[in-house]
């Protein structure tokens, strides 16, 4: 007895299920970029080289994953890059000028970062202004605050000396240390990046909050109509991005033990680029956290690979831009193909 198969409940093969994942394009891009550089530079594919390009990928990846969640929820945060600087500046200034322990200074930094995320979220949800404009405002204000407050308190444009603060050794080991694998030191930040990606993926795919995020990014009106707390979800997403900025800001401050007042400017677009390479749509409602993490790896590989190949630094940005465009294009092609398979 065979009933006419309903295509909506048809059994979908593994290959197809893989093909329609948003991060598939990024995986293909990852393989292409890796093979390209690895075939030309032996250092690039050595353990040392891998540690080199995973290093920028880790901190970028933590941010990209948070920004991806926010973008899936239909919003942007242009203040995220500068906020890493703000968090770092608070940490180093409090710990070196006001006698705070590193942990206490980090806690204050976290509270301030979350407050800024909350403010971003409240303004966006209450005023219905585009988050692009709201966070552009926050971006400029933070940039001014970072420089103004740092100059006012310290009389200089970079605060340093975190190494001497109490609690530095432990905090440094946990957030900014290294682990030895096969005689090569890898950054601990890589573990944090994996943890953040895992948590974000779980939230997106397995929790109610994840459904809400897709819902508010896909169609906010409809989401509201079926009882999704849209404003609350968006505010939480802005605060998550702020949390990630705090984490990355603290990691960088602990590693370099000094922070410049102009740090993080321009990074916000790199986060968005990584998320888009990873399969996020600029219009929201679609994307993946793992994809964003992979996007960060692609960026890290291109960023460092070009140096390993010894191409003239004057042309560096051109190659980087071309590489990213190609990765995004490849991503797009694969996704279009995948969607054809789906129907």
């Amino acid at each position: 007895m065979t009933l006419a198969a309903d295509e909506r409940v048809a059994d979908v093969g593994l290959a197809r299920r893989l093909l329609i994942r948003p991060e598939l394009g990024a995986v293909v891009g990852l393989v292409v970029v890796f093979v390209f550089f690895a075939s030309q530079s032996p250092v690039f594919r050595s353990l040392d080289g891998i540690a080199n390009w995973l290093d920028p990928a880790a901190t970028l990846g933590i941010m990209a994953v948070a920004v991806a969640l926010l973008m899936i929820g239909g919003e942007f945060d242009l203040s995220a890059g500068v906020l890493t600087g703000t968090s770092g500046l608070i940490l180093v200034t409090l710990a070196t000028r006001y006698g705070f322990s590193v942990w206490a200074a980090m806690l204050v930094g976290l509270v301030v970062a979350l407050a800024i995320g909350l403010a971003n979220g409240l303004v966006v949800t209450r005023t219905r202004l585009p988050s692009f404009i709201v966070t552009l405002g926050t971006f400029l204000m933070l940039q001014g605050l970072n420089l103004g407050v740092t100059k006012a308190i310290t009389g200089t444009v970079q605060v340093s000396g975190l190494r001497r603060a109490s609690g530095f050794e432990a905090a440094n080991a946990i957030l900014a240390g290294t682990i030895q694998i096969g005689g090569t030191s890898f950054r601990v930040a890589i573990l944090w990046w994996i943890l953040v990606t895992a948590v974000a993926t779980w939230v997106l795919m397995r929790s109610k909050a994840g459904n809400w995020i897709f819902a508010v990014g896909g169609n906010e009106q409809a989401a509201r109509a079926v009882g999704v707390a849209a404003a609350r979800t968006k505010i939480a997403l802005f605060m998550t991005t702020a949390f990630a900025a705090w984490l990355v800001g603290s990691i960088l401050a602990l590693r370099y033990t000094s922070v410049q007042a102009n740090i993080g400017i321009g990074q916000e677009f790199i986060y968005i680029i990584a998320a888009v390479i990873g399969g996020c749509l600029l219009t929201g409602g679609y994307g993946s956290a793992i994809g964003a993490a992979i996007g960060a790896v692609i960026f890290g590989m291109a960023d460092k690979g070009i140096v390993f190949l010894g191409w003239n630094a004057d042309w560096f940005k051109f190659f980087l831009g071309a590489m990213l465009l190609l990765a995004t294009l490849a991503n797009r092609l694969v996704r279009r193909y995948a969607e054809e398979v789906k129907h």
Partner: protein
Amino acid sequence: MRRTPIVLALLGALAVSGCSSSGGQSAQSAPAASSAAAPAAASASFAVITHAGAGDSFWDVVKNGAEAAGKQYGVKVTYQGDGDPAKQSQLIDQAVSEKVDGIVVSMANPDALKEAIGKAVAAKIPVVTINSGADSSKAFGAITHVGQSEDVAGRGAGEQLKAAGVTKLLCVIHEAGNVGLDQRCKGAEQTLGGTVERLQVDVSNLADVTSKVTAKLQSDKQVNGVLALNPAVAIAARDAIKDSGSPAKLATFDLSGDVVSAIKDGEILFAVDQQQYLQGYLPITFLNLYKNNLNTVGGGLPVNTGPGFVTKDNAEQVAKLAEAGTR
């Protein structure tokens, strides 16, 4: 009221164990194959890693100097730069992975580069620091420092401006994160005997530099001197002085073809010249000598490349050289 648990979820685990602190230099001493294992005698490879992004007129001359020395000695020279100290450290890490024969680093933010330079030193790769960071150079294990003391240069500029009758000086800072620029302004403040006001601008937006300086000159008629700290900023400031009709005298740090012709025309009083070509050329020379003959230069003291002053008297000769990209 329910709340979305994302933030709390992310806040979760702060207890990851099993990670070892890097703790600076002590950690790893890579197999010391760097210089000995170079395949052929002539093919040494040196990396120059500065804190300036591509396209900066000052650093382009450093790059030219380093590349000219590379050609002279038949060694490979790569030039990279990034204003973000995190990225600069990563570039140093990369050079260490590539086991280059020597590294040249400018240290605008020495603290942040400490770990990366420590790794290079631990891997027995000789390091020469250039430009900024003279105070930390020796402590970090560099074999020598090639540059110009910011403080001394600033004081020199202050003296010259005082002699020209400047009483209220505008010091134009063009990179927010660079301590060296602030030291120049402080140095000028010490010898000028008048007041020095600082103006923060962004060197990558020169149109904005002109309008900011114009606004300042229009709003404060007392300002009778402007000190630019970068040649491109100097040209922007020259336009600002013209636009605002201010009688302010202009001086600058560092040269470009445009600055030299402006000095010839009397639009710029003088330029403090740190002869940055030497900051590219000499380190490659020193590293090459170190590699082939184990020579160290300077006896533990910085090697000074300046300050010299370019005025109307010698501008003519310097002009030709600046246009060729070596001054």
